[in-house]
């Protein structure tokens, strides 16, 4: 091989790429920009929700007299009042409160994993990643139960004018209110759930790499940080879904 072969030296000038104005790596910046674009997707869902909800009548009576009807938008706490193991007991928003706590807790264990990564503490990174995977999977399982309950419906169902009854909700019928209410529920929580699922897959990859010592050899745990950003974003989206779908 010729000894005169020279590799191009990294450019170090301010305007040659030798400058890092945001003091963040390429990967981290790109994760931020991806999350920004994802914000637009969820913003579109939020806009759709606002517009469709506005086009439906609001329920004007008291909370005690509320009955399910296709004529107006339902009160969320009347729709989401079931809890696994407490069949027929009215526990408004209790299950979604539990789900919210689980997801916030998974965010905390994720930060703890990132923090352990800064200290190059392989054992702690493994431990906290496992907790995060566990809480994330629990959240997904809860959502699966919530969907199943929503789809199968209540015992009494909704009586239609022709004497027939419908139970639960699909994309074309809805026991709890207007059909579009169910559609929005499936699309918004479904899209969020898909994000959680992707996050769990990424976390499992992170866990395998950590166990194999890939990041320890690399000298930093930045990959865990990047997946952490994504995971917190999923938590952030849930905070908004929770407010606009379950509270407002």
């Amino acid at each position: 091989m010729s000894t005169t072969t020279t590799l191009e030296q990294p450019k170090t000038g301010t305007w040659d790429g030798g400058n890092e104005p945001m003091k963040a790596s390429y990967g981290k910046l790109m994760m931020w920009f991806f999350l920004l674009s994802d914000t637009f997707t969820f913003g579109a869902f939020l806009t759709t929700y606002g517009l469709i909800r506005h086009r439906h009548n609001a329920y004007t009576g008291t909370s005690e007299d509320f009955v399910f009807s296709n004529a107006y938008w339902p009160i969320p706490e009347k729709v989401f009042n079931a809890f696994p193991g407490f069949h027929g007991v009215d526990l408004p928003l209790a299950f979604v409160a539990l789900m919210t706590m689980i997801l916030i807790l998974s965010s905390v264990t994720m930060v703890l994993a990132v923090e352990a990564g800064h200290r190059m503490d392989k054992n702690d990174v493994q431990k906290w990643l496992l907790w995060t995977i566990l809480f994330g999977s629990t959240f997904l399982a809860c959502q699966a139960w919530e969907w199943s309950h929503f789809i199968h419906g209540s015992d009494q169902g909704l009586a239609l004018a022709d004497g027939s009854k419908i139970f639960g909700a699909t994309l074309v019928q809805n026991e709890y209110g207007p059909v579009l209410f169910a559609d929005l529920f499936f699309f918004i929580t479904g899209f969020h759930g898909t994000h959680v699922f992707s996050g769990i897959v990424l976390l499992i990859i992170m866990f395998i790499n950590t166990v194999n010592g890939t990041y320890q050899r690399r000298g930093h745990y930045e990959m865990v940080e990047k997946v952490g950003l994504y995971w917190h974003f999923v938590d952030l989206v849930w905070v908004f879904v929770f407010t606009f779908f379950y509270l407002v």
Partner: protein
Amino acid sequence: MASHSHHAHDEQLTGEIPKAQTKGIWRVFVILCVLTAIEFAFAFFMEPGTLRNIIFIILTIFKAFFIVAEFMHLKHETKSLIWTILVPTALLVWLIIALVTEGSYYADAVFNYFK
């Protein structure tokens, strides 16, 4: 070549691992729990209405602030990165508000026109 030869023994040579500094993380966790609890208190003890919705949205923005600033570490990034994220987000919030209000008006107008 060089990149893996001199890192081969890193796992044995890491030496002292500093102690974890997790006080701030748990503080944010407590704040998020308290804000969520306040939201539930309002959901059950206040009549539905515009005021209650405004309270919900304000509390949600507080929660979002703590998640983005502390958990996602944005508060501790450079100013240019903070603004790079916040300015498009602010414009998006404006877009959502505009689309919902104008869209609602437009939908009502079309609906009434064909009534």
